[in-house]
């Protein structure tokens, strides 16, 4: 009975310390300042957090309730991503594999096609293969919890990238791009390009996807402050390029007066940009989110205003590095939940973007 409050106390303490580290590192300002009780002295607790954590071993590890997970026994890191037919996820898989090999691991990369059931099978496969660690861009915030727990029970630590799950203390790290900040940042650039007025349309992503709403809400938090910007159409194009193209054509038929289109991702934005080119409309300001090379080429030609780069290569490297730290030292030294800021890409800095890496 006595042990539980003590553990909770340690968890809270380490969470506070880790949050301090985060805000010192320039992570998302919003959650850090709202959750950390003493944001002013963030630099001070940051130092002891990283140095003291390995010394006090298990108890100080942010997510661990008990001794650190030893790994399955082999030297293999499993990398699970959604379909690799998307350049974004492909970059994740490639970067993780490269980093894992660089750190002396064997890397095995698989895709679960956003199917929680096949993801669950892949977790079983990793457990049977005695994986040292699992890096996963997961297939569902709730559906994934059980699989991660299963790996945990088998002594295998899981590091989640790109998407969170709805439970903490199961995975060791959850490193995600700050979609909210990124969408808001590029929306600001778009408002400027629009001259703060005009009618526009929005292409939403898959409406069952959390990111679809996070991005749309962030767009509107910025855009709705300007009363002269009026949304006249809002449609889902399911993250898809052909749908982005055909829906844009339909919207242009109905609302030829629009001068802007905001898109939940770059794939739809590229479809929209192509539809505008075909319709001879070079006056329409388009933005997306992701930071893909396809979008970059439209930005360079002036057919898109910008995109928000989610630094998925950086996130992937961080995850593998933290997996390595954890396996060697029993702790990652940082908090479980970490937000990595997006970078607004416009014609001003698009030349520094290549394969989801920003060489600023």
């Amino acid at each position: 009975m006595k042990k539980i409050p003590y553990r909770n106390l340690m968890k809270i303490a380490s969470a506070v310390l880790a949050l301090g580290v985060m805000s010192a590192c320039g992570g998302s300002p919003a959650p850090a300042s709202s959750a950390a009780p003493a944001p002013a002295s963030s630099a001070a607790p940051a130092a002891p957090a990283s140095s003291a954590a390995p010394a006090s071993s298990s108890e100080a590890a942010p997510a661990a309730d008990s001794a650190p997970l030893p790994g399955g026994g082999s030297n293999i890191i499993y990398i699970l991503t959604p379909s690799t037919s998307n350049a974004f996820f492909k970059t994740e898989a490639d970067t993780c594999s490269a980093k894992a090999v660089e750190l002396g691991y064997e890397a095995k990369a698989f895709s679960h096609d956003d199917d929680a059931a096949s993801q669950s099978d892949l977790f079983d496969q990793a457990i049977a293969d005695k994986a040292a660690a699992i890096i996963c861009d997961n297939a569902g915030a709730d559906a994934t919890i059980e699989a991660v727990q299963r790996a945990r029970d088998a002594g295998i630590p899981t590091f989640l990238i790109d998407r969170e799950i709805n439970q903490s203390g199961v995975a060791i790290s959850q490193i995600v791009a700050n979609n909210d900040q990124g969408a808001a940042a590029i929306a600001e650039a778009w408002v400027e390009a629009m001259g703060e007025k005009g009618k526009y349309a929005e292409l939403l992503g898959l409406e069952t996807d959390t990111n679809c709403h996070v991005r749309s809400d962030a767009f509107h938090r910025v855009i709705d402050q300007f009363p002269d910007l009026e949304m006249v159409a809002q449609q889902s194009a399911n993250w898809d390029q052909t749908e982005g193209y055909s829906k844009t054509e339909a919207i242009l038929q109905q609302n030829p007066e629009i001068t802007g289109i905001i898109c939940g991702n770059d794939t739809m934005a590229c479809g929209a940009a192509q539809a505008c080119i075909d319709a001879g409309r070079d006056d329409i300001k388009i933005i997306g989110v992701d930071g893909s090379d396809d979008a970059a080429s439209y930005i360079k030609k002036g057919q898109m205003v910008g995109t928000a780069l989610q630094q998925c290569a950086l996130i992937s490297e961080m995850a593998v590095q933290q997996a390595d730290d954890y396996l060697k030292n029993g702790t990652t030294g940082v908090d479980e939940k970490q937000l990595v800021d997006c970078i607004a890409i416009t014609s001003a800095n698009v030349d520094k973007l290549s394969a989801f890496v920003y060489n600023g």
Partner: protein
Amino acid sequence: MDAVKTKKDNSKMIMMLLKGRTFIVLIVLLIFFSIANPNFLSFSTLTMLAKHVALYGILAIGMTFVIITSGIDLSVGSVVGLAGMIAGGMIQEGVTLTFAGVTLYFSVPVIVLFTLLLGCVIGLINGVIVTKLSVAPFIATLGTMYICRGLASLRSKGATFSNIAGNEALGNVGIKALGSSIAGIPVGAILLLVFAVVGAYLLRNIPFGWHVQAVGGNNRAAKLSGVNVDRITILVYILSGFCAAMVGLINTAQLAAAHPASGDSWEMNAIAATVLGGTSMSGGSGTILGTIVGAFVIGVINDGMTMCGVSEFWQKVIRGLVIILAVIIDQAQRKLEAKMALQVRNETN
């Protein structure tokens, strides 16, 4: 005597209405959306509609032939993706012969022909698996569906070929022509018309078409009366593969990009258009005109609701309801047909 005649005329009248039901639905939808949305009924909206319908309309023409033989082709969506990747890759990267150490670039007509040929080869494989190896069409084409999708992703290791325009110096520009317009009419829509006319001719005016219907109507009877059932079945799958490759080319040309996941689940739209057009899933009967009308019904629902700002979720629900309703009426028509045939026989006796 007169009473019998009026009754017969009435049934004839009902039959006519039933046969033209999809067309009636199309007209009703057009009127509905024109009232709901003053911008809807215009030349530019209709050409846009034809351009969007062309993609799954052409797929549905191939699918109609397959379904008339009481088969199904689930691989067409994946072939759309694969064809786009092959054509896009040949324009963007050329073909590298590793043993010779050279990269060859082909002109667009050659690439288009090669891609269409590839579609035919996949159709041939489907047909051979279905006939010579006696695998059920659903399973055989399910297999090739996965294979083609996988190959499409392998072609670029998952990446998108973007900005497909070709290079003047390499002499491979011009793919955009397939996605452009001639005199305000999209090339896709013109191709849809060409495919529809040729398809209707093949199905109605030459022995090949009669054999297709015979194979689906009664496989055994067709065989006994000397129809080469295997050959007809294989040809039908080749036709479907050819249509799918064409759609892949048009889609790639319109987007100026090729994505391995393109065409995902488009086979469902093609099947829906075919069924809406009155082709029976059990084979034997169906018309190209019906399929085209069915494709336009789906197209009007999609574009009309998008232009009216109806949510994607409702669009799906309504599309589903229309398909089920169409099949229910189809069944009613068949029952009435059987009843009328019986009536005629009773009278002649």
